[in-house]
């Protein structure tokens, strides 16, 4: 790589004014405080081992999701020493996880309070690539976090959407660097460093499909993780993660199966129509209003049950597959542009940062109930709320609407 630009930037930053020295007593005071902490004996052997386990996992190259799951199990194991009902070979489990180059599992993603779920077959590689596909192969998403690429393919329509996550604004940084599992790993690491926020509950044993499993539940900040694993081998059978109203259930784990590299390729296949999704240009309130308007006009005045990642699919169902084809029997580019614009509007809601506390309450609501709030959020840096009613007009409000069945949205609904 050409060093010249870096040298020029170094020249610029070399001109930074000299950093001020710390206050006279800061260094000495901190030194004493650090030594006091150094001297403090560990109060619990499990904490000591958890930190060792966590440190081991973080310094060895293993797939990130397995680090989070393993650390969660480590936390539980050492929080309940001597509980023979929930014992399993931890060392064996850690070896299985640490040796994993590839993991395949099935994940079902749903929003709590909604019966709508999406089931995906997921493949994760230890170099931070992931492939998710619907069970029928109708939608395939490939994520290459290191290279900052997300590709979604719809083989039946030969369409592709490409996202360069390197252009993502700050609050979408998790698109670029981590999914919810890596978030979980970071929380584990933070808990390891801070020795805080670890609360675990043993769930005893139960038989699932003829197999006896040991269960644990761990809370990390706003994530609740429930693990059912083979008590002898430590192999996970089922992991449930509840986070901000979204639940992911992972089952059917298989480790280190041989997979073709092409499954993780972000190259667009020949013959596909590609749409680049510009994450640097965020959709606006007006885009969301337009999308709601389009949907309700197609759905006899009703609003969608929920806002999810597959709004484009819902639009296609509403207009009918046959309308995707033009008079020349080709895929209509105009219609595909409408699908993308439609989905784009809903992304305004789906991509809200967590701090915005965005909520959706449009299920079962029609346009005729004009004052009924269907969506609201708190803009960054403001104390007031923006509330969208069924009349499709935004208004400001000092308080959030109090609506039963409202569902809090979060960025996790873009990724599972």
């Amino acid at each position, binding site marked *: *790589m050409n060093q010249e*630009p*870096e040298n*020029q*930037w*170094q*020249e*610029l*930053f070399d*001109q*930074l*004014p000299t*950093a*001020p020295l*710390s*206050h006279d007593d*800061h*260094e000495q005071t*901190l*030194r004493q*405080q*650090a*030594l006091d*902490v*150094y*001297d403090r004996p*560990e109060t619990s052997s499990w904490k*000591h081992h958890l*930190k*060792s386990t966590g*440190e*081991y996992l*973080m*310094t060895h190259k293993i797939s990130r999701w397995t680090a989070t799951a393993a650390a969660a199990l480590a936390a539980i194991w050492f929080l309940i020493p001597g509980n023979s009902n929930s014992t399993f070979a931890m060392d064996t489990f850690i070896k299985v996880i640490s040796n994993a180059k590839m993991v395949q599992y099935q994940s079902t993603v749903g929003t709590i309070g909604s019966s709508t779920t999406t089931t995906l077959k997921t493949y994760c590689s230890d170099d931070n690539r992931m492939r998710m596909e619907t069970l029928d192969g109708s939608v395939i998403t490939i994520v290459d976090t*290191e*290279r*900052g690429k997300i590709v979604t393919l719809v083989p039946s329509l030969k369409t592709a959407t490409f996202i360069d996550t*390197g252009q*993502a*604004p*700050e609050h979408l*940084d998790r698109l*670029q*660097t981590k999914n919810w599992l890596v978030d979980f790993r970071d929380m584990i690491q*933070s808990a*390891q*460093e*801070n*020795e805080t926020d670890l609360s675990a509950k043993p769930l005893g044993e139960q038989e699932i499909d003829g197999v006896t499993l040991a269960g644990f539940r761990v809370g990390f900040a706003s994530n609740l993780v429930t693990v059912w694993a083979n008590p002898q081998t430590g192999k996970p059978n089922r992991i449930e993660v509840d986070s901000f109203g979204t639940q992911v259930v992972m089952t059917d784990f298989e480790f280190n199966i041989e997979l073709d590299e092409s499954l993780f390729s972000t190259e667009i296949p020949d013959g596909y129509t590609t749409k680049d999704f510009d994450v640097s240009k965020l959709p606006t309130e007006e885009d969301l209003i337009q999308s709601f308007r389009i949907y309700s006009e197609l759905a006899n005045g009703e609003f969608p049950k929920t806002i999810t990642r597959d709004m484009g699919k819902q639009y296609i169902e509403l207009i009918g597959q046959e309308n995707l084809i033009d008079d020349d029997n080709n895929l209509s580019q105009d219609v595909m542009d409408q699908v993308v614009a439609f989905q784009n509007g809903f992304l305004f809601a789906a991509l809200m940062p967590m701090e915005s506390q965005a909520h959706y309450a449009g299920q079962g609501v029609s346009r005729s109930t004009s004052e009924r709030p269907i969506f609201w959020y708190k803009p*960054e*840096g403001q104390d007031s709320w923006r509330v969208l009613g069924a009349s499709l007009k935004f208004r400001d409000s000092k308080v959030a609407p109090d609506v039963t069945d409202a569902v809090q949205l979060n960025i996790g609904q873009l990724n599972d």
Partner: protein
Amino acid sequence: MTEPSTHDHPDLVEEWVRTAATNRESFGHLFDHFYSLIFAYCSRRLLVRAIAEDVTSEVFLKVAKAIRDTQCVTTEDFRKWLFRITTNEINAHLRKTIRRREILDAAVKMGAVGKEACVKLLSHDVEVDWEQVYRAIGELTQREQSIISLRFFSSLSHDEIAAVLQLKSGTVRVALNRALNKLRERLQQLQTDVLLTSSRRKRG
């Protein structure tokens, strides 16, 4: 950039790293050796002395808690681990909007960047000031900010940055290049805005 005490022989520092988990005095020596390096990095990143002190404190208290379990055997291992903790602490700190504003307020007081450096990097013959530089940095992603800071505020190599952030070296190179391009474009845009404003004022 303040470097650790030069009178500490490298072999001695490595001995401290190896024994710090069980030897209090070694841990104390490591603190003495690395304090100024970490404080200086925090100062350049956060600009407000009191905040840099707070973050430095968090770093070393975490080191003190975790030193017995660290896998570090070389000075280089320890240094990377230290910067990893520091990066995480700084990022946690910067997630608060009010902290970002404090940085920009402090940057205003730092005045302008030297013209020669600006002309080399940017197309216009207009100075930029440090507030604009830190504003532009603040608009990058968290990862890009970390990479730029580690590269230019602490002179870490690409490989060292990769180890600190647990990325591949190639990823760091690509991300750094991308971040610098974004930085340049943003500063050029800010310069253009200044020129336009100045032009309007003259006409007005």
